[in-house]
């Protein structure tokens, strides 16, 4: 048994034995936890991953005449300034206001630019008051000129996380990176055995007020992070999915651009790569055992991100040893894996923190308060309007056509029924294609008489149990106007069109306004 005070004395004397979490794994397997706990004083952890729930509080200082900023923009990225006159919170994922830049530059990039010492353009608007008469400010700022810049991240360092794949036939662009069709790849984000909260899974040493490594300088744990969850399935003592989280803060003025990076998940949006490392004092044998966790012992679940619902289906289980090997097996097929967090930089974080402690520059802290280790669950947002499903849309008679039908007959069907889309089916009612009034015009123009020559074979479909909001997104994404509804056997059950969805929204408005249409 050791105390933090004793370890700190050793650090001050330059006698502390510090190792990184991956080194600890082999030390414990060679010497055993008891001997390791006597010899090792501190284990350093590290992670360098995309942490969307990050941002910074900035205080710009008062202009002359003064302004009460009500809207602020930094390099065209809006920061929230519904605080006192010259305070703002810049969120990492806020995209640029400029539609030409859009997702390519956001709050995270502004944070990186400030840390790199670059000039950033501040534009602030105000309504003007007796004490703050100015209505507009436009000026370059730099990190060293503004009063405070405190990185404040509501949710960092997730304790384990889902592993992503995509079973659908189209590429998806998600916060878990680019997911290829038909489970063509797998992405994961945890640093595994080096990750801070996986080395102290029951929060025995990490707590409120713990001094940590944050983006190249010292930072502090404010409290448990948002969505902190403790009532989770564990294997080898480690949660198998997302569980504990941390709220962190640190002084941006002292941060090092090697350990923080603005980034954009393609077609998803900006996010901040945060380098965070936590020292774990080896106070006893149990703590030593926990820090010896290996990649193989950390189990995680592969989730199908092809299903855009709150609870997505689990495909299978894996562990970080398999994931880090670069390929895993799903249903007997080898699938390549991508880490989204940089293990190389995570190791740099753990090494850097180790060096600080060895040099006596960084002392450990007793937590002011423990993090909650039980009783925390993440509640869903229950909306008072449940999602409208495709099957809830008023059913119309199903009009279909067969692939051997003549163009003239198809044209008549479209006109007679006043519709623009017709699903094409075979004799079993299974979907073979889709034909639109435009395709018919095209057929006439190019003198084609067979439907099979003009119909579209690769059809974007809707399923009865899908939410209409998802169909609206699909219509928008593929720039189409109607989708056949099919069941599990690929049999056509109807059509859903952009008009149906407009009518649905119109209908809701009508109800809310007491029956009058607007």
């Amino acid at each position, binding site marked *: 048994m050791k105390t933090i005070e004793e370890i700190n004395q050793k650090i001050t004397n330059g006698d502390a034995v510090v190792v990184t979490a991956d080194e600890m794994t082999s030390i414990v397997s060679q010497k055993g936890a008891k001997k390791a706990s006597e010899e090792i004083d501190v284990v350093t952890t590290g992670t360098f991953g995309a942490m969307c729930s990050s941002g910074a509080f900035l205080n710009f200082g008062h202009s002359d005449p003064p302004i009460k900023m009500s809207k602020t923009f930094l390099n065209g990225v809006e920061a929230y300034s519904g605080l006192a006159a010259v305070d703002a919170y810049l969120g990492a994922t806020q995209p640029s206001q400029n539609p030409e830049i859009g997702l390519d530059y956001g709050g995270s990039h502004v944070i990186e630019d400030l840390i790199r010492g670059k000039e950033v353009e501040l534009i602030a608007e105000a309504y003007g008051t007796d004490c703050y008469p100015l209505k507009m400010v436009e000026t370059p700022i730099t990190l060293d000129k503004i009063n405070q810049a405190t990185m404040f991240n509501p949710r960092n360092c997730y304790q384990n996380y889902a592993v992503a794949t995509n079973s659908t036939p189209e590429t998806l662009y998600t916060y878990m990176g680019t997911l290829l069709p038909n489970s063509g790849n797998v992405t994961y984000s945890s640093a595994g055995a080096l990750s801070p909260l996986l080395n102290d899974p029951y929060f025995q040493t990490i707590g409120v007020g713990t001094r940590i490594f944050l983006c190249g300088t010292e930072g502090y744990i404010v409290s448990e992070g948002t969505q902190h969850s403790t009532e989770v399935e564990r294997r080898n003592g480690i949660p198998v999915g997302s569980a504990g989280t941390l709220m962190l803060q640190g002084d941006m003025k002292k941060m090092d651009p090697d350990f923080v990076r603005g980034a954009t998940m393609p077609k998803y949006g900006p996010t901040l790569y945060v380098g965070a490392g936590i020292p774990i004092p080896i106070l006893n044998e149990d703590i030593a055992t926990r820090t010896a966790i290996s990649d193989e012992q950390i189990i995680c679940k592969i989730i199908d991100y092809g299903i855009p619902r709150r609870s997505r289906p689990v495909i299978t289980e894996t562990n970080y040893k398999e994931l880090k090997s670069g390929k895993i097996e799903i249903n007997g097929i080898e699938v*390549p894996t991508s*880490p989204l967090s*940089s293990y*190389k930089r995570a190791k740099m974080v753990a090494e850097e923190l180790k060096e600080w402690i060895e040099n006596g520059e960084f002392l450990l802290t007793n937590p002011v308060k423990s993090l909650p280790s039980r009783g925390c669950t993440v509640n869903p947002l229950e909306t008072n309007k449940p999602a409208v499903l495709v099957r809830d849309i008023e059913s119309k008679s199903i009009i279909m056509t067969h692939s051997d039908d003549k163009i003239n007959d198809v044209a008549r069907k479209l006109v007679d029924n006043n519709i623009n889309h017709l699903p094409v089916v075979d004799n079993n009612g299974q979907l073979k294609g889709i034909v639109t009034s435009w395709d018919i015009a095209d057929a006439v123009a190019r003198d084609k008489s067979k439907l099979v020559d003009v119909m579209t074979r690769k059809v974007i479909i809707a399923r009865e149990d899908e939410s209409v909001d998802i169909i609206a997104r699909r219509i928008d994404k593929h720039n189409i106007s109607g989708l056949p509804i099919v069941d599990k056997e690929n049999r056509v059950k109807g059509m859903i069109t952009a008009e149906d969805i407009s009518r649905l929204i119109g209908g809701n408005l009508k109800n809310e306004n007491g029956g009058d249409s607007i």
Partner: protein
Amino acid sequence: MKAWLRFLPSIINKAIISDAIKIYEIDFNILRAYITPRGGKMLVEINGPQENESIQYMEEQGIQVTPIMRVVTKDLEKCMDCGACVSVCPVNAICIKEDWMVEIDNQNCIGCGFCINSCPTKSIDFME
């Protein structure tokens, strides 16, 4: 060797490549092709004892040939070795090395551009 071939619409109807393959007995593999009414651009791999002669022939016929050592290039300042690109590569040309650095093998690269589009810090680009 890998090379970019560029040609104008004036020669688009000539079977220059087919002739080059027959005359110089080269292996000719098209990795990427952009053909428009205004001309075309192809990334190809040419191999064989007479590859230099075949290139000379193509140039005489009006094709601009630019041999390249690397198909894509990675900005080491911007790259943070996250590995997001690794699993989107269809030919396994990107790997994470022993020291956890991400490395692109330009020998195997076919210039599909998937890694370029998947990079969170836009650190990969085509070599022009």
